[in-house]
C-alpha cells in the first residue's frame, strides 16, 4: 500500500464513523421504532403510526400547511435576496462589498433564538413598528403584527435567507461582466439580460440556496413556536409533542420519517424542474 492510499483510508475513518454512528444507525433505529406500537408490556409490529397520519385530518393538514409555507418562504427568500446578491457582487465597489457581506452575516453570530426574540421586540403591540406608527399618527390601535402567520414567516425568512444569498453571490461572482455588456450592445433589454443570461448562470446557486432554505425552514422549530400565533401549525411541533407530551416515541419516529420523505421528494422535484443535477448543485 502506498503512502497515498494509507492516508486515504486513514482519512476515510472519521467520515465513515460520522455517517454510520451519527446518521445511519439512529435512522435505522427510528425506522424500526416507527413500525412499533407499545402495548402494556411489549410492543408489536404495526402500520398504525402511519395510517393514523392519514386518518386524522389534523396531522396531514398540518403537514400540507408546513410544506406549502416552506415552499413559499423559499421563493420569497429568492425574491428578497437576489437583488441584494446582485448588488453586492456586480454594482457596489469591491472594497465595500466584503464589509457589507460581513454585516449581513452578523445575525448568524448571535444565534437563531436571539434573532427570533429580536423580532418579538420589533413586532409586538408595544414594539418598535407599532409605537412609531402611533407616534406618526398613522394608526391609533396597534396593528396585529405578532403571533400570527405573518410574524412566523418573517422569522423563518430572516433566519434562512442568508443561506440563499451566499450561494447566489458565489455564482454571480463567476459571471463575466462582459457577457452582460455584450448582450446590452446587441440591443437586449434589461429584462432579457436578466432572464437569458443572469438567471441561467446563477441557477446552480439558486437551486443550492433553495434546497438549504427549504430544509432549514421545514425542519425549524424555534420560529414557529415563538413567533407563530394561536392558529399556526408546524409539523415539527407535532413531532415534538409526540415525543414530549404524549410520550409516544414510535408515533414521533413515523412523523419524522414522513417529513424526511416529503422533503426529499420536494427537493428531487425542484432539481428535475430546474434541470439541475445534485452533484453540480452540491459542489
Amino acid at each position, binding site marked *: 500500500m502506498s503512502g497515498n492510499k494509507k492516508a486515504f483510508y486513514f482519512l476515510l475513518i472519521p467520515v465513515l464513523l460520522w455517517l454510520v454512528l451519527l446518521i445511519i444507525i439512529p435512522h435505522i433505529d427510528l425506522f424500526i421504532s416507527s413500525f412499533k406500537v407499545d402495548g402494556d408490556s411489549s410492543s408489536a409490529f404495526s402500520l398504525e403510526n402511519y395510517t393514523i397520519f392519514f386518518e386524522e385530518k*389534523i396531522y396531514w393538514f398540518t403537514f400540507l400547511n408546513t410544506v406549502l409555507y416552506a415552499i413559499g418562504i423559499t421563493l420569497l427568500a429568492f425574491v428578497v435576496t437576489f437583488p441584494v446578491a446582485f448588488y453586492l457582487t456586480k454594482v457596489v465597489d469591491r472594497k465595500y462589498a466584503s464589509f457589507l457581506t460581513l454585516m449581513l452575516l452578523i445575525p448568524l453570530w448571535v444565534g437563531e433564538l436571539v434573532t427570533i426574540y429580536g423580532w418579538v421586540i420589533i413586532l409586538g403591540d408595544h414594539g418598535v413598528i407599532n409605537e412609531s406608527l402611533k407616534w406618526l399618527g398613522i394608526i391609533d390601535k396597534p396593528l396585529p403584527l405578532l403571533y400570527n402567520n405573518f410574524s412566523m414567516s418573517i422569522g423563518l425568512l430572516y433566519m434562512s435567507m442568508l443561506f440563499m444569498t451566499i450561494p447566489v453571490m458565489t455564482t454571480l461572482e463567476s459571471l463575466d461582466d462582459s457577457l452582460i455588456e455584450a448582450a446590452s450592445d446587441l440591443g437586449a433589454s434589461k429584462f432579457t439580460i436578466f432572464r437569458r443570461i443572469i438567471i441561467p448562470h446563477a441557477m446552480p446557486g439558486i437551486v443550492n440556496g433553495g434546497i438549504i432554505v427549504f430544509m432549514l425552514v421545514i425542519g425549524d422549530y424555534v420560529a414557529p413556536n415563538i413567533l407563530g400565533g394561536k392558529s399556526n401549525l408546524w409539523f415539527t411541533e407535532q413531532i415534538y409533542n409526540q*415525543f414530549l*407530551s*404524549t410520550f409516544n416515541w414510535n408515533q414521533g419516529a413515523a412523523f419524522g420519517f414522513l417529513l424526511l420523505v416529503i422533503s426529499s421528494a420536494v427537493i428531487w422535484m425542484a432539481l428535475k424542474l430546474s434541470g439541475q443535477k445534485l452533484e453540480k448543485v452540491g459542489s
Partner: protein
Amino acid sequence: MRKLSIAIIALLLASSALSAQDVLRIITWKGYTPPELVKKFEKETGIKLKITYSNNEEMIAKLRATRGGGFDLAQPSQDRISFVQKKFPIYQPIDYSKVNTKQIVPSMLEAVKKNSGVDGKGYAVPFCYGTTGLIVNKKLAPDAKDWSDLWNPKYAGKISYRLKRPLLIGAAFGMGENPFALYGDKKAYEALMDKVTKKLIDSKKLVKNYWTSADTQKANMTSGDVAVESGWDGIGWQLHKANPDIDFVAPKSGALGWIDTYAIPRKSKNVEGAYKFINFMLKPENAAYFTNKEGYGTASLGAEKFLKKEIKDNFSRSFSKADLDNIKWHPAVPAGFETIESRDLEKIKAAK
C-alpha cells in the same frame, strides 16, 4: 508527549473521581434552586451542584432516553410519576428512613407517597405546592373570577392561556363538570374532553395568544395586552408586587392544586447526596427562604414562622376559606389519557 498523555489521564481520573460522590446532578424547574441556597449547600456538604432547568414533559423524556441515568435527582410533579414508573422504570423507590420526615407536613407526605406509589412503594418526597388559576388585571377585568371567564365575550381579545392539559381540566371545572371524577372511566373522560374542546374552539376568536412559558405569561400581563389569563399563583403574586392591579384569583369552581416533588432516578450516581439535598431543602429556614423568594407554598413543617408577612398576605388575599377547601388536587394521571388530551389540544390549536 508522554508527559502530556500522563497529565491528560491524571486529569480525566481526577474529574471522574470528582463526579462520583462530590457532584449532584439535578434536573429541576427554574426557581427551585435559589443561588443562595445552592451556595449554602455546597459550603455545608462540599457537594457541587450541577443544575439543569426543565419541565415535566422534558424531564420524563430525558430520563426515559437514558433509562433513568444522567441525573442524580429530579423534581417531577406528583401526578406524573406512577404511570411513567409503571411503563418505563426510570426512578428508584424512596427510602423514607433516610428522609427527615419530621420536617415535612404529614398529610402532604402521605398523599405524595400514595399518589407516586407503584406496588406499595413510594417514589417521591413533596417539596412545594401551588395552584393553577387565573391571573387577572383588576383594572381591565374587575369581575373575572372563574375558569368560564376565559371564554367571556366581555374580555374579547384580552384573554390568554397555556394550551396544555391543566387548561382542559380547568375549563371542564368551569363548565360545571368534574374531570377528576372520570379518571376511572376513559370513555366518559374522552366525551367530556370533546365537549371542552368544542367550547374552546368556539371561543377561540376571543383569545389573544397562547402563552408558553413563565416569561410569556408575565409579559402578557405587564404589557397590559391581556386582562385575564390562566396562570400559576406564584407568578400572579410576583406580578402583584410590581403592579397592584394584577393579582392571582382562585377560580370559584376550584383552583387546580399541584405538588412538585423530589424523585431519585434509577441510575443516580449520588443517592446519598440526593437525600442530603432533599433534607437540606426541606429544613424550615431553607424552605422558607425559597417560599419568600418564589411565592410557592412549601411542604416543610415549621417553615411558616420564617415566612414574610407579604407572603402570608398573598395566600389570604387570593384564597378565602371556601377557596382553600375547594382546591382540586391533581390525582395521578391514568396511562393513555395524555394521548387523548394531546390530540384535543392540537385540534384547538389548528382551528381557525
